């Protein structure tokens, strides 16, 4: 049992304390934009923001996340306006299958908050998400586009 604050709403979820936040978000709260990819914090498909920091929600328990501000891909746009990273994603036509992209977008949004004009090296170090389709060239272009938007 935990009180989770997700995208500004507080929701009581009836799960064990050690349940990975990922499953609570997806199955109890019903926000399915956050994806399962590996369960060991390797791939980043489940990336959300916890108090503004990009975290892999498969590696955070609900009890650790309780009381903190959690933002998922569904909460990134504000008042119907896409976040500038989402806008860059649309304009650059980044996704292929799309499954990893919500995690990728969340990771990039956090990077740009910390480093508004990231270099290629900053991107290499910060964006460690896996994309099996291989969208990285478009991801990099879109990050630079979002940074200069």
């Amino acid at each position, binding site marked *: 049992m935990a009180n989770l604050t997700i995208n500004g709403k507080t929701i009581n979820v009836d*799960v*064990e304390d050690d*349940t*990975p936040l*990922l*499953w*609570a978000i*997806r*199955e*109890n709260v*019903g*926000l*399915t*934009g*956050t*994806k*399962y*990819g*590996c*369960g*060991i914090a*390797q*791939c980043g498909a489940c990336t959300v923001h916890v108090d503004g920091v990009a975290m892999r929600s498969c590696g955070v328990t609900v009890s650790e996340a309780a009381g903190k501000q959690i933002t*998922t*891909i*569904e909460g*990134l*746009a504000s008042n119907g306006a*896409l976040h500038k990273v*989402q806008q860059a*994603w*649309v*304009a*650059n*036509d980044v*996704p*292929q*299958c*799309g*499954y*990893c*992209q*919500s995690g990728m977008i969340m990771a990039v949004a956090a990077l740009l908050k910390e480093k508004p004009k990231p270099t290629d090296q900053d*991107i*290499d170090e910060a*964006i*460690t*998400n*896996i*994309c*099996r*389709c*291989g*969208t*990285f*060239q*478009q*991801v*990099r*272009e879109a990050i630079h586009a979002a940074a200069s938007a």
Partner: protein
Amino acid sequence: MNIHTNPKKLRGFERYVKVDNVSRRSILKGLGLAGGFVLAAPVMSRPALAAYQTGADKMPHGTVVDPRVFVAIAPDGIVTIVAHRAEMGTGVRTSLPMIVAEEMEADWSRVRVQQAHGDEVKFGNQDTDGSRSTRHYLMPMRQIGASARTMLEAAAAKRWGVPATEVKAVNHEVVHGASGRRIGFGDLAADAAKESVPSVEGLRLKDPKDFRYLGKGQISMVDLRDITVGTARYGADVRLPGLKYAVIARPPVTGGKVVSFDGAEAMKVSGVEKVMEVKGWPWPSKFQPLGGVAVIARNTGAAIKGRDALKIVWDDGANGKYDSVAYRAELEEAARKPGLVVRKEGDVEAALKGADKVIVGEYYLPHLAHVAMEPPVAVADVRGDKAEIWAPVQSAGGTREDVAKTLGIPQENVTVNVTLLGGGFGRKSKCDFAIEAALLSKELGAPVKVQWTREDDVRNGFLHTVSVERIEAGLDKSGKVTAWRHRSVAPSIASTFAANTVHQAPFELGMGLVDMPFEIANVQCENPEAAAHARIGWFRSVSNIPRAFAVQSMVAELAHATKRDPKDMLLELIGSPRIVKLDSVKDLWNYGEPYDSYPIDTARLRKVVELVADKGGWGRSVAKGHGLGIAAHRSFVSYIATIVEVAVDDKGKLTVPRVDTAIDCGTYVNPERIQSQIEGAAIMGLSLAKHGAITFKDGKVQQGNFDDFPLLRIDESPAVTNVYIVPPGPDTPPSGVGEPGVPPFAPALINAIFAATGKRIRALPIGKQLEA
């Protein structure tokens, strides 16, 4: 909101795609190409592609050309077009409906796409596999669109009392030129539906010069926005009232089974509701489940935790000793002895004996796992003799058939809803995971989701085969290649379907072995025996990966041995522009396509080599520690050539500053999707070449997740992949795009590493071979 057009940005497509008319004309002369190119001018000047045949009608259930099945028009004018193939990132859910919209003169911004459920009788073949969707459906989709347009025009003509020849559909309305009258598609919908469906033979197809969408670019995938905001629905995102969550412990050794299990500890895990055995099929199990022990819980986290607490005694069966180190030695031994001859021209034995020099290369590629970012997952709701499935399946129709057969109910009682696929790469052509969910739902009398964990995906999948390719090439005194013997040894995909399979099937032999296009007098291809000890399946590009790796590495080895430029050597081996004759090959697969429409045309292969050499700056001077490599390969009836630039530092760290790829995929639909497939192929190619290895010990896969089966991330990814698309001739039929990009990548990379360092790598992955 599933339509998103993106007119302002072509993703640099125009930067890359323009090709030099002069060099193109010199190569393509005889094909009637009249210069100009896509964005600047119409490519195809005839009313329609001349008739060409594809293998589409030989696929199960063939094609269905019926606008009543694929097109619906609402009174408000919204046109709904059915996508009957699965979307796994290649863009077919956009491209195929777009072809229909093109021909029917629908305005794309007023088109909605509806995903077909599994029903091949109704929709035709749905197996989204083998780079076939555009290849097989360009013409049928055009015919469907033309048919719908003809019916709309007929309805308008009747309403106005004018001959149908005087009216014309233009951008979502029908216009009567003489009077200037016009009616929107929405107003005509009811009347058009009463018109009879015209015969395919009498259809008037649009003049390609009037195309608005086809081949033009600028149209994004219909799911782009949904993906970006997190609302796109994949298999795992399906939620039903009362849904149970399951994970399954499957046999760790292929062909193994459960002897006994103790679920007491698992049942103590909070949230776990039930532990039960799942039926498995004896090996070779085809697309059926492997069996095992399922843990049912009220959420996936609890199910996984419960599974960790299971105690299971397994019978490993016949493959319990499978060991990748020992098996590689077996394959190598087999490759050094004669095997089943599958192609023979001239006398290779004598030619090798009489050669001035013989170069031998033995190339090894280990098993690979697909690891699509979305692991297999399925939801099933089985009630009585009815079943409904929601799953990311490449083959919706096949899933329906297999689920029906397994449950013993009529196909008509099974509904298969196809979600988006979070990647497929061939794994999701097999519907074992959907059958598992159906079996569990039937037992439990409740809807069930079966989630494969990443470890399940790596350890219990349908792996890419493991192979040794051995090539012996004989050279005469002048450096000309006079003999070529290629032995390919690998367990066959057919072993997943038939016990005691030891030879590769025609569809595997036809991927870069018997269809090798070089102009050499004495050629022999052999297939020594290899037994399978793991579940083998189709993996993006399939046998083309090891074959292109071997053949194209050997080309560079021969260039080195004769002090030639590798590109010149490659062109010399491809030889004169001609249609390759393969009379000695008993069962030439040719990707299921008729040879008349899709021959091996060396002019087209030469063309992509010359184009990429020109655009990619072959021969340019590169910095110290850098090197260029080239490779070309025909697969899925498309022609591709790639140049890779590598940099290897003094510690052996490998980076890829630049990739250039030229592709000739015939008439194409969506150039931006070609670009994204080629970019992705470079990354998949580099990933498998650097890191890819699934290995076995004591019958068990030794890897489990991305920590020990690493994939490329952005830091290792090529800095840029430039894509050059050969403009199609007026009569060039469409060919594959999803898979052909992968095979030439690894050999181009390996050849570049040789150019940079003098080290010749013959076994993948590269791993630490460049260190030291």
